[in-house]
């Protein structure tokens, strides 16, 4: 068949063609730029179980390696010459039975590049609700400054079921917060063997956790229900990193291997950006 292009520099015909059509504007299309940076909030479970092994290292080490790689990739995407443009703003919380603000507020990617990746040690329990309440408070204070910027994303990494209050109500409230680019996105990276039937997944061939994917545990199902659908623009960005996630997939990753944990952090920074890649 023939695929062609009509009048690359003539928009008039296209305008006429869509005149009678109703097309919803696409959310999650605002580019991350210095003037409209993307806000990414990392929420990291540092409970005692994060000492358990995963692929030859402790779960904590795997997570910090993947987070470091994601930060470096953000710096890569933001660097022009030797200057790091503040295209991303980052907040980072570690939580166990308390919540710890690792960066002391929101920092730009160039500031985080100066600070480097924080070192964490494991603690005790998993008060997920408390952690998300902290995120909710941060977003509450920030959301009105984010109109015109990409929708914020909360990337939650955990390896076990919560202790304390059920986090689902607060997560659902967060998912209802909205900017002009769309609702706040929530992504969950769940480090557990008890999610999928498969014990091995090739991240570069995997299509993701879909609404119909059979999950082994009820907690995994719960996490899926509080994981946002992957926006199309994120899907395109992930493709550039060699990941081919399906359209209907949830923003939930089973952290059954270091490669999948890394994929989860790549997903967290897949806001579309301007400029040639």
């Amino acid at each position: 068949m023939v695929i062609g292009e009509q009048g690359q520099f003539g928009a008039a015909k296209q305008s006429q063609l869509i005149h009678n059509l109703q097309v919803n504007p696409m959310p999650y299309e605002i580019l991350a730029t210095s003037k409209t940076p993307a806000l990414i909030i990392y929420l990291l479970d540092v409970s005692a179980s994060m000492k358990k092994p995963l692929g030859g290292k402790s779960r904590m080490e795997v997570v910090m390696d993947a987070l470091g790689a994601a930060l470096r990739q953000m710096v890569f995407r933001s660097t022009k010459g030797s200057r790091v443009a503040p295209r991303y703003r980052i907040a980072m919380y570690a939580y166990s039975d308390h919540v710890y603000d690792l960066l002391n507020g929101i920092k730009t990617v160039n500031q985080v590049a100066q600070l480097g990746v924080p070192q964490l040690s494991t603690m005790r329990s998993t008060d997920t609700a408390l952690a998300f309440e902290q995120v909710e408070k941060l977003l509450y204070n920030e959301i009105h400054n984010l109109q015109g910027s990409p929708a914020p994303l909360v990337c939650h990494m955990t390896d076990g079921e919560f202790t304390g209050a059920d986090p689902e109500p607060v997560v659902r409230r967060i998912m209802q917060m909205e900017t002009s680019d769309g609702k706040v996105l929530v992504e969950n990276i769940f480090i557990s063997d008890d999610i999928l039937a498969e014990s091995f997944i090739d991240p570069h061939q995997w299509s993701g956790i879909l609404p119909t994917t059979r999950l082994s545990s009820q907690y995994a199902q719960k996490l899926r229900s509080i994981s946002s659908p992957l926006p199309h623009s994120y899907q395109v960005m992930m493709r550039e990193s060699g990941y081919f996630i399906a359209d209907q997939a949830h923003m939930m990753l089973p952290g059954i291997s270091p490669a999948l944990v890394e994929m989860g952090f790549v997903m967290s920074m897949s806001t579309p950006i301007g400029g040639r890649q």
Partner: protein
Amino acid sequence: MSNPTVIRIDQRTETPVTDLQRKRYGLRYAYARSSDSQSTDDPGQDYLVVVEDGDKLVFALCDGVSQSFYGDLSARFLGEELVKWFWQQPTKDSASLKTSLADQLSAITTTASRLVDQYQIPPDVSPMVKDVLEQKRKLGSETTFITGCLNYSDNSLSLAWLGDSRLRLWNRRGEVSGKFSQTFNTAERWSSLKGIIGELHVATLPLNQIEYLMVYSDGLAVLDETIQHHVRTETLISIMATAQRMPQSDDISFLQVWNSPSRPKEKPAPGVPTNLKIDKGKDRLLLAWKGVRRAEYYEIQSNHLLNRRTSSDQTSMEIPFDNFSEEDTAIFIRAWSDSEPGPWSQSAALPSLPKPIAPPLPPKPRPVQPVQSQSLPPWAGILIGLGALILISSVVMFVFRDRLGATTDEVGVIEDAPSTAPRNETGGDALVQTPGDISLPTKTPLPIITRMNCERSDLPNVICGCPIRGGDTYANPVDTPDSEKVDYVTPSEPGETCYFFDARNNSSTWLRFAPGQEYQGWFQLERINPEPSYIQLPVEIGMPDESEPVVQPTQEKIRKPKFWQITPTPTEETGEQI
């Protein structure tokens, strides 16, 4: 022939629009760094160089890839190499030009790589940034380019390009750039490490067939839709200023050469809109103004970031409050007519806008107490006692079950302590509702393919395969960043089967695809041939009703299409829906 004049822009500073007129030709050029680079006083990564002597003009416009290693380095290096090479070359035909230039672009990678290897990274960058820059160094420095030679001694125009900078040509009848469509690709560029990435494009034609040409980097992509011909310098300056205000402001470089002893004819600017009034509605501002003759549309701009256009010559517009930021305090309007803007109107002050009401934070839940420090309420003891009694009774009944005449099945099971883990209320592995109040996409009033004609495919991501008619032409009128390279599709081979990927995302039923890649995503098709109607397209595909039974896969093995395939025209028996 006089000694050649060399015009080079300085990447570290702005070059205002500058004209130069010779006996046979004239040119104008401009350069500006992105607003980010200006604010940090960093060099831009575009580069423009022109060499001319009155009989010959050679130019190179390069746009460094910012995510490569110091894109300004390769842009400057390649620009100089291209003009040096082109100036010395005899005129060639297209094939020879392509071959010899490709060879040259490969040969210079040795020198370029040495420059990249020797480049000193500033010592004060952080360790993480240094790591990233060393990673980029290994990948090389990259740039796009457009280069050309206008040779009056043999009436030849030779052009070559690689990447997504724009090349536009006009003859006396109008723009003739359409012949280059599909060739300005973001993925294509020149690399100091690898040489040509993608396909080198060339064109040769008689110089006297062209009235003028323009080349510009993608930082001025707004020109694509805004101007259809030569414009006044004031217009160019104004458009550059608007481009730099945008959040995605990029480096800008521009060159125009006209093939005549004087500038091309310029159209007059439209008048100034007047009586701009702003009224406050419930949740939006209502702007109205007195229009001007010949206006095709109006541009509305604030003193900060807001920029809007009317879709026609309407003289009013509504803008929701949340489109404005705190820095917006005034509004200006101007008219556009035939690619020329008029002057800005007098400003109108924005009224104070209500701050958005944030929802109250929920009350903090009770803090979780450790179990050992919690004292039990008085009635807990009674419950524990009852529980113990039940447990003892159960054990007794189990031990003496034979004598009691009970079977194992009938004996009560010892209850586990209630779990603190959350339980999935739906149970099992039921399809989970997508969380949140995600509204379904608006459905268009167009005919819908019924599921009779759809079949489930076992291909990944394909929900529904629906036939479209072979021989018809379909246009994709949705102008989106991903689909901008594809506007129409003509299935031409009979016997092909078409598959559409069901979007099933939270905003649209449309399906989109990009050429030359594995089909994925979503797009919108509109049939425009054989009937000249621009509607009547079966665009809603998929989005199956969850309550309907799932269509089972057919027995016939479906071959995975390389791209996508079209079924033969359906017969009456199958019930054509198109």
